[in-house]
């Protein structure tokens, strides 16, 4: 609200008096609100895709597992747990970015060929492998966190 008056003051010279002051201020306010939501949407998109790989990025153990985030031993042989496991898996898939989850589901569930997926999502095959790699790391870690 304050910002509206501030930007109105800054651009007061461009106000030609064709419309009333009220209409003018309201139009600035509207634009401010739109800007806010647009920025918010961008921020969320970044948040979703900002998954950090569970490997050391530098040092002696570069590209090796960070121990706390490395895959532990799963005991999923027990049939009773199947439904629960499946529910968690669905939840974890929903946390992937829209593009990653689309690629993941097309590749595994629909068993599409790599070319089909690449054409559909418009990515190169090298990019497809990178996305699958990230998605698998992320889903696996999420399942482990929720389940064990």
């Amino acid at each position: 609200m304050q910002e509206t008056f501030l930007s109105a003051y800054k651009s007061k010279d461009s106000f030609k008096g064709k419309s009333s002051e009220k209409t003018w201020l309201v139009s600035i306010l509207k634009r401010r609100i739109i800007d806010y939501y647009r920025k918010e949407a961008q921020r969320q998109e970044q948040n979703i895709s900002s998954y950090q790989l569970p490997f050391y990025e530098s040092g002696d153990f570069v590209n090796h597992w960070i121990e706390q985030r490395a895959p532990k031993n799963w005991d999923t042989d027990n049939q009773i747990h199947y439904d629960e496991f499946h529910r968690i898996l669905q939840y974890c898939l929903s946390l992937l970015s829209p593009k990653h989850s689309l690629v993941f589901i097309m590749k595994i569930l629909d068993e599409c060929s790599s070319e089909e997926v690449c054409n559909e999502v418009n990515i190169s095959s090298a990019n497809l492998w990178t996305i699958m790699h990230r998605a698998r790391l992320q889903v696996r870690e999420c399942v482990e966190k929720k389940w064990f």
Partner: protein
Amino acid sequence: MSLKKILIKIMDFILLDCKQATFLVTKELEGSLTFWEKIRLKMHLLNCKFCYNFNVQNEKIDGILKATP
């Protein structure tokens, strides 16, 4: 540089590091590895419990997803 660090560097050179290994696991599940990639991956998985687990778990995830009606 300690002996352990040198050993890790040599092992990485021959047997891949974990990031490369998990990448190859991903590619293998989709069924497209070259002969040498297969050998190096197998050797890595024998030596690295974490990557071995990663492989088993992703096979399990695929299995459960595909079994869904």
